[in-house]
């Protein structure tokens, strides 16, 4: 589960970076300064066949930007994206289409991502037609059945507002499947849905992964659902991925202080007892991405920050079970010891 061979990798990001220009102020013009939002910096990840990869992190940490970069909706500032081992640079028109045929994006908000003026039929027909496929009744029915909207006929001529949130999200997924993609990028696909219907959509995604062998990137801020649903989990903080590994490992034995903070903060009905212990966990607000902190971006909030954290950017340190973390705490011994318990101790230092 941890180190599958490279052939399984469908989509790969290598050192992907995205900086958004900030609208320049009068003073900027005078000083000749050009400011940017460092939304995503040096992000590398692999999406594998039949695997769900979760990307978690707080709001504004750059998760959606990563998804849009992978969908080629934004041009890259740096790095490269490889589809099936080939570096791609989709521009517009034909090459872009052939890219999106394989990589499809599902948006966070099913209420906003379907055009209120078009029927389900229109949305799906377009998705099929764009990719040069027939859009007959059977094709549409099949598509809807894939996302468990049955009987399909009942849904085809409905407008989005006539559907519940879960149904809308299914339509959005069906539209993505219309292209018959290899990769699904799901950007917080359930965060706008009611508690009781979230699960249905997540189960559907998992089912698709298994049946269609899709590679799925599941973006969320709910780390508990990553544990439940994803095979691997990546943790993002302020535009960088700070930790990654097997979902169970990352959630049960978080290595990076930020992941630890995240997990400590997540609501948990079972906690009650442990309340007092976590009192001293980090606080403060996420950093500005216009002028991100030097060194480790988490150091201003980190209870375990060291001198080195302020100046030097921590590289990835491999830990046990395919887990890794970008934190100086693991600078020594990470390579030498395979003991998973070790980094827990190191973190507690």
């Amino acid at each position, binding site marked *: 589960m941890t180190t599958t061979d490279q052939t399984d990798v469908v989509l790969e990001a290598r050192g992907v970076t995205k900086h958004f220009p900030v609208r320049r102020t009068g003073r900027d013009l005078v000083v000749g300064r050009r400011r940017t939002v460092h939304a995503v910096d040096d992000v590398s990840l692999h999406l594998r066949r039949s695997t769900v990869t979760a990307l978690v992190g707080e709001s504004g940490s750059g998760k959606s930007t990563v998804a849009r970069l992978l969908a080629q909706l934004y041009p890259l500032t740096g790095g490269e994206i490889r589809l099936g081992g080939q570096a791609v640079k989709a521009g517009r*028109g034909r090459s872009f289409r052939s890219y999106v045929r394989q990589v499809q994006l599902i*948006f966070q908000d099913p209420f906003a991502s379907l055009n209120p003026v078009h029927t389900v039929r229109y949305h799906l027909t377009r998705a099929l037609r*764009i990719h040069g496929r027939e859009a007959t009744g059977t094709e549409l029915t099949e598509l809807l059945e894939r996302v468990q909207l049955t009987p399909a006929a009942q849904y085809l001529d409905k407008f989005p*507002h006539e559907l519940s949130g879960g149904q809308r999200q299914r339509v959005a997924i069906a*539209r*993505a499947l219309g292209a018959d993609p290899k990769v699904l990028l799901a950007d917080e696909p359930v965060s706008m849905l009611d508690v009781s219907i979230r699960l249905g959509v997540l189960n559907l995604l998992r089912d698709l992964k298994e049946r269609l062998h899709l590679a799925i990137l599941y973006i969320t801020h709910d780390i508990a659902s990553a544990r439940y649903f994803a095979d691997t989990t990546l943790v993002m903080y302020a535009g960088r991925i700070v930790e990654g590994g097997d979902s169970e490992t990352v959630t049960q034995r978080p290595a990076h202080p930020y992941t630890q903070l995240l997990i400590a903060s997540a609501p948990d009905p079972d906690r009650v007892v442990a309340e007092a212990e976590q009192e001293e966990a980090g606080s403060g607000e996420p950093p500005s991405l216009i002028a991100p902190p030097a060194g480790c971006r988490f150091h201003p909030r980190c209870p375990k920050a060291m001198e080195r954290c302020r100046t030097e950017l921590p590289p990835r340190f491999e830990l046990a079970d395919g887990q890794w973390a970008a934190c100086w705490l693991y600078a020594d011994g990470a390579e030498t010891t395979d003991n998973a318990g070790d980094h827990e101790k190191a973190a507690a230092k």
Partner: protein
Amino acid sequence: MAVTAAEVAVLDTTETPAPSKRRFRFLRGRKTAVGLGILLFFVLIAVIGPWIAPYDPDAMSNELLQPPSGAHWFGTTQTGQDVLSQILVGTRGVLVVGFVAGIFATILSVLIGVSAGFLGGMADELLSVLSNVFLVIPGLPLIIIIASFVSDTGDLLIATVIAFTSWAWGARVLRAQTLSLRRRDYVEAARATGESTWRIILFEVLPNLTAVIASGFVGTVIFAILSEITLAFIGVADISNWNWGTVLFWAQSNQALAQGAWWWFVPAGLCIALLGMSLALINFGIDEFVNPRLRTETGASRKVRMRVGFTPVARPGTPEKETRP
């Protein structure tokens, strides 16, 4: 300024769905119904006016300046023409100019506003300057000037001129709207699905602007009708084409009011006001559709008085307790 309100209101309509079947639902509602009723009445007159007019509006007779009577419901003019016939025949000109100008101006504003909003960047800057220049140039005087430099001031020309000088507001509102739509998820989603830019503009963005476009259209029609009538009244437009403005022009140049011939002057004015009101009511309906909070008919009955911050308590049986401040 109704336009401003609409502009602001439409910016927060993310939650209001405008589905296609219900895309024209803004045409329902009591106010809109009344407005549509009046408008339809005038449209009917515009179509059949020349046939049902009892006299030739140009025909002079010996019944000079007669007050309303059975033979002449709206009285006669200085030269014995029938005022009712003039108004009936003149309705067509008013509506044709109003609607043709409205359509032209709307097309212009959609073209310029939506492209500016959607394309962004340099195109946006240029188109914005263009529409601002047209906003800055004084409308009526400009119309007078343009109208006076063409030799044939027929209805169509007047309509074109009015359209040419009145599209800018709509373009501005549409641009703002498009800017907000451009980043909507469903537009991005269409892009991510692989739709081409022009298809996105045409099929994803435009249908969602229906209400805004309709409201701009109705507003332009009101403006065009008032401009046309004003132009006719001050003698710039061709006053040998009958419309309500030319009726007023002749009445005024013959000093109808000073002569006590109110019947020559009043009906045309009332018709304009009525038509204007009907269009304004339709616009109201559109505004209410775009911004549901504006609805006056909130289902409030006479019994329960709604008031912000003090929810009425209406227990069945017990009379409502008055809550005055």
